[in-house]
């Protein structure tokens, strides 16, 4: 058992190293940060001097080692563009992204699950067909178009919701929240809907498929045979068993939400990590880009690791097989 965990951890570490290497290598060849840092009037000597100061002239392995060492301490250096520590920048931007992701996930679950259950139970009703078709349309439109469409409708035409920004925020320690003000709520609605649409469709379809699957199983048939009401069969027996895989997938999708938020944040000028990343890309702001990539990579790795370990704990068969395999090997 210990071997399995250690193995998993080692794999996770290897993945992180690879991510860090890719981050480091890619970004060392994207644009020239020096040019963005100085004005058009800087002389060649200024440029060379700055290059030396930033360590851009050192051999690549040395630069990578320095990058790793600093990253391990949460130190990604100073943003080339903002001239402030990257760790501080990210800490400032995390609340905005997490609040957006949290609300999006909530919308996806709260809307997606009931719709999934409904379309599974009333497979042939016209409403189910409408829901399924429109969910397909929703998911095949690019996020960008959905966002701009919402802005056009609710900001320009109806003048109900703000087209950009986060509204008034309240500071609770280092966490800034928009959930305590009217304008904060108004500002988050459209980005949250935009970001949640894809996940919503995913939840809807997953719940529907799983539910239909479960409804065909023997224990549901037996439950019906015992004369239990539809409600109890559907919600106690079927839905509960539907939830396991759905929750697993949702857990993994949270990483996806954070990654997808780049487009949504750009469209709505939402001051989160995604926007920070996009602004960094336009500027070849290597420290910020590297930090973001490593962070998102770490998030995926941790989520996967947790799922793996959870399976190991939950599923006794996995432990058995491993034990046997180990036994045979010795």
């Amino acid at each position, binding site marked *: 058992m210990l071997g399995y965990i250690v193995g998993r951890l080692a794999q996770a570490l290897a993945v992180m190293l690879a991510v860090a290497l890719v981050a480091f290598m890619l970004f060392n060849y994207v644009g020239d940060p020096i040019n963005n840092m100085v*004005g058009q*009037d800087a*002389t060649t000597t200024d440029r060379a001097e700055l290059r030396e100061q930033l360590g851009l002239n050192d051999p690549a392995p040395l630069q990578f080692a320095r990058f790793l060492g600093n990253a391990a301490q949460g130190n990604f250096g100073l943003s080339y563009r903002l001239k402030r520590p990257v760790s501080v920048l990210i800490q400032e931007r995390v609340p905005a992204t997490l609040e957006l992701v949290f609300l999006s996930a909530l919308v996806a679950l709260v809307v997606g699950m009931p719709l999934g259950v409904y379309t599974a139970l009333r497979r042939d009703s016209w409403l189910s067909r409408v829901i399924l078709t429109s969910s397909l349309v929703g998911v095949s439109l690019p996020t960008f178009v959905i966002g701009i469409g919402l802005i056009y409708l609710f*900001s320009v035409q109806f003048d*109900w919701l703000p*087209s950009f920004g986060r509204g008034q925020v309240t500071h609770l320690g280092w966490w800034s929240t928009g959930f305590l003000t*009217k304008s904060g709520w108004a500002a988050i609605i459209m980005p949250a809907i935009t970001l949640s649409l894809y996940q919503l469709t995913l939840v809807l379809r997953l719940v529907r498929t799983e539910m239909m699957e479960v409804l065909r199983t023997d224990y549901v048939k037996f439950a019906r045979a015992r004369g239990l009401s539809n409600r109890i069969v559907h919600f106690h027996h079927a839905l509960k068993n539907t939830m396991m895989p759905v929750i697993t997938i949702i857990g993994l999708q949270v990483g996806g939400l954070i990654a997808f938020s780049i487009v949504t944040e750009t469209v709505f000028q939402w001051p989160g990590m995604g*926007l920070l990343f996009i602004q960094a890309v336009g500027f070849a702001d290597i420290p910020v880009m590297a930090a973001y990539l490593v962070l998102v990579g770490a998030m995926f790795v941790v989520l996967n690791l947790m799922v793996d370990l959870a399976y190991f704990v939950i599923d006794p068969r996995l432990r058995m097989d491993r034990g046997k395999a180990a036994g045979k090997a010795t």
Partner: protein
Amino acid sequence: MAKFRIKAALLAGALTLALPLIAAPALAQGKVLRWASQGDYLTMDPHSQNEGLTRTGSFQTYEGLVGYSADLKFVPALATSWKAVNDTTWEFKLRQGVKFHDGSDFTADDVVFSVKRAQHPNSDFKTYIASVKDVKKIDAQTVHVETNGANPILPNQIANIFMMSKAWAEKNNVVNPQSYKDKEETFAVRNTNGTGPFVLKTREQDVRTVVAKNPTWWGLKDNPHNIDEIVYTPVTTPATRVAALLSGQLDFVLDVPVQDVERVKRSAGLQVKKTNEIRTIFLGLDVGSPELKYGDVKGKNPFADKRVRQAMYHAIDMNAIAQKVMRGDAVVAGMITSPGVHGYEKALDKRLPYDLNKAKALMKDAGYANGFGIKLDCSNDRYVNDEGICQAVVGMLAQIGIKVDLAAQSKTLHFPKLQKKDTSFYLVGWGVPTFDSHYVFSYMAQTPDGKNGSWNFTNYSNPKLDGMINGMLSELDPAKRDKLIHDAWTILNDEIIYLPLHHQVLNWAMSEKLDMPIIADNVPRFHFAKMK
């Protein structure tokens, strides 16, 4: 589960019901001007970064000795007058009774401090005052600026140097401009203490910057603006920026996309102001290399032959580009600087006519009847429709047999490539903050020597012209100096090392409630604004 569903339904319902309620716009107190453009100020340190939008930020809270009027004339600001007391000394008489935002007095010591601060190696403004040898306080209201040799354009240059409080800088440990070397954030990056018309209230990088009216500003009686607060928000996505303007969440958009200009104009309650920017877009040619790095002619450089350059000039139909690519928003150019810059002359701003037959004949004369291949380096996110301009040029040059391979890329890749001189043929645009031709010549035409000619990637070197450029910096007789500038432009136009394209046109989109002059250097100055 049923309970969960009910709760969920309730929550969803509550959200929907709450929509119109929470959407009611908050009522603003006083006159608040909300505006946006694509990016944010890089820093609030007034001597750190010489970049257009960053200067816009600084101009709200800081001021120079010399200021700008709405039509970009140099006018008294923190200095009430200036004159040359001898060939190498400029005397500035300071305005009395001016206070910094923290309430302290503005003094001659602050001037000496600020100019020296801007000369620090960390400063991006040091080039403007490269000729300054020393700054001296003579008395409480007099400062002498000594230059290495005579410098008639010092007031133009010093207008770009913002004045800071010495005591404040010392107290907050920001005596030097913000540096990359120390890798630390300084106090001046997020706080300001100038004498300007507005006081910094909140600074959230990339999110929001708010400044409030400075009720004790000395210039208030001449510029009785009624703006109580200015909220600046960078909005990256052009569509969102325009939508925010259309829906009334913004009063002013600095960089409205060309394709949306008509739409904004047609919208009720909005207006678009237009002017010619002090910026010219042109193509540069490597005329000096023995062989073109990105050309297919071996052993010689076709651009070294003036007939080829002339043929290319004749082959570019700039009127067509101005109409089709720029949608009319371009002024066809015949010299590489624009109206508003000292030394600009209408007579010199004449293009060689578009004439394909003549161009073909010239190519044949030069021995390139079948043309040749060349690569054109172009940015795609720096100037208005830059990539579209290059595409048009590619098509036009094909008609005289020049096969152009277009390499259009982001400014973060384009400009470094140019600065490494890794180009044979390129697009660039040039603005002139000093409004004097010397600025153009010293960067674009002077032989590169580590200090001058740092944007001359043409490998062009002309000692006679170099002498004239140095003359422009030190000639004190205005008539002689103007003659020098005129002659230099004549030489540059005649040599055709650059193919002029057009002077860029600015569009500022704003609410009809806002009355604010558009300014040709693309730096809005809000103390000229009035709001209904």
